[in-house]
């Protein structure tokens, strides 16, 4: 039940003396945002402060600073708190933005090509899978 999670993220961070918690948000289009959750409402609309879009490719990741994000609730898949202590404790390697974007482009290309081959193979067998334009991309 997603309500439990929302309740969680709201009830903590209750006073000024505590450190603000970073939250990780996964969106329906596959983007991962990390930022300080400043506001939330009953539809899970979010206001993220000092947001960073994190792109993962393999074992590498890169952060693109994005500033303030206002996310419409229906696009949120999940939202979680980041343990600030464990944040740095990751086997993943951080790289520069340019590098990660390049890696991502390469990955997308490989995926597109394999997709093309699949569609071709299906066509040869007389099958066709309709393009799922409205489905969430990953």
């Amino acid at each position, binding site marked *: *039940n997603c309500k*439990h999670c929302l309740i969680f993220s*709201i009830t903590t961070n*209750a006073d000024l003396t505590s450190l603000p918690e970073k939250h990780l948000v996964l969106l329906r289009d596959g983007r991962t945002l990390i930022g300080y959750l*400043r506001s*939330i409402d009953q539809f899970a609309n979010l206001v993220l402060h000092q947001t960073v879009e994190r792109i993962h490719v393999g074992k590498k990741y890169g952060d693109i600073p994005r500033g303030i994000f206002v996310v419409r609730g229906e696009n949120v898949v999940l939202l979680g708190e980041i343990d*600030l202590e464990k944040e740095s404790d990751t086997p993943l390697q951080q790289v520069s933005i340019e590098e990660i974007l390049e890696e991502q482009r390469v990955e997308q290309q490989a995926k597109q090509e394999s997709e093309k081959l699949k569609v071709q193979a299906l066509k040869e067998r007389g099958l066709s899978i309709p393009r799922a334009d409205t489905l969430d991309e990953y």
Partner: protein
Amino acid sequence: MLEEMEEQNDLGDPAVMRAVHSKPTLESLDSAVLDSRIGSTWGEFEGDDLDKAILQALDRAPPMSHMNLDFLVSPAQRGYLGSPGLKCPDFRMMSPKSFPQRFMRQQSPMMPRSMGSPRPYTPPCRASPLFTPNQSSGYVSPTPFRPMSRNISTPTQPLAMHFGPMSPSLEPPLFFSPPASCQLKFSVPSHMTQLHPQHQRILNQRQQRGQARSISPKKAWSPKADPYSGLMTRKEKDWVIKVQMMQLQSENPHLDDYYYQAYYHRLERKQAEEELLGGRNKQEPPKLVTPYIQKMEIYDSVVRIAGSLGQVAVSTCYSPRRAIDAVHHALQEETAGNQRLRALHRIEKMFLQLLEVEETQRKMSLLPEEQHPRFREKKNHEAGRIYQALKIRACDSEEEAEDEFLQVLCVRKGKKLTARLLPHLAREQAEEILVAITRHLPFLMRKDVLDESLPVLYGPLSEMVGRMTFSELIEVLQELTRPLAGATELPLTMTFKNQFGISLLYALLSQGERLLSSDVPLEPHSGDFEKWTDTVFLVARELSQVPKTALVEPLFLPSNLLSLFCRYLDKQTIHRLEAKMECSPLPSEAAMPC
């Protein structure tokens, strides 16, 4: 608005604002507006006097008791919070210009103070109403809450969450922010809303850690440098939480929130076990208890405007977005159409009915004995309807594939449906099902080769068998001994290779033996005993002939089978059967009657 400002001075406490019959505020009309006065009205009153007054008010506000807004916060968390949400001391550090804004936000914690003596938090008491209708102190708060002015058990004027436009004909809004006393109205257990177990654990951990290393905070985020962390006030957070809690509450949590309930029961059971084994202190898994807030309005989530095409979906906080009703108008095609699809469709419909039957059963078990007959009747009626829908009837082996009941049984879900339905059926109906299954057992076994889901029927069927009379038993066994047209093997023999089949056979035999060795008069029909002995001999013969490797292990091996064989067979045969069936040997040779 002006009147309000003047009146506050009368009370001598500028923190208090009296509720007046002003025209509906923007907040009451539009739930999206939390505070329409920020930056607007206050601008008119800027000046040192006001600031001084505010400062005085702030000075006077002592550390509040825990009653103000922490109703939704667990005791553990309250401890963590330290002095509750008043940000008073920090205000002085802020610029005076921003005071009014912050003051507006922070009004609520101070408000309860004005309402008579601060009440220590008490568990909800049912007798006395907390707000008499005459009570006039209160103030306009930014949020469109209404007070619960009657007692808890029957909230006749329950907390209404009005969203969207409110009609002006409603009674003058006495807007209160949710003071703690108001929250007592919720049927919350005395230890307030508890958090999810995981949540609780993490908060406790954090609390411990926080206390341990409060010395070295991270430099990057000192409180002064993070002015945004208070963007959402306690009040606003609580409000959102309340909305969510309201959406969570349901009349029938077992049905609506099945997975969480099942998970929670499992957790409870596991903890109970651990408690028994480990002897630890009783730990109850804290449950997320939603406070009961009665929804005042019944709204139509889909509005049809006469003469227009389509529907307008009204979205409120209860259901932010409700999909337009999609009603399946497709007529059921009786003649054409895929048979299997039809069977699946029927199964789904019957399953929903079954869930209702089980729900009735569950409700019945919770109620006192006197009310049982009414429920039982309802349940039997509903179960009977499903039985009718199953369309069990006699059919030949050629018609098996077309028979509707057998089609249902070929589907795994159909078997589950039948298995769950059996305990609720009348005796004759359940027997019909058993007879039908046994009659078509070879067919069913053949169809179940891939799925292997027949064993789901074993439990309820074996229970049924345990209650059968001798004659009924014979009737069922006849189905297994009757030779099939076009088959070399007896159905009996075919069961050896199927786990369910052999288990059912053993169960039947075991029941027979039990009946014979008991003192209950059997009242057999004529010819029953012969049929019985014939069957036993037949079973023994087939069992001894079938190679051991072909014999499948049953789901359950009754212990009285050997005793059964002892009645009729010689020692040698028995030993052979014993070895084949891998029964535990009889106590001692001398004790054997044969």
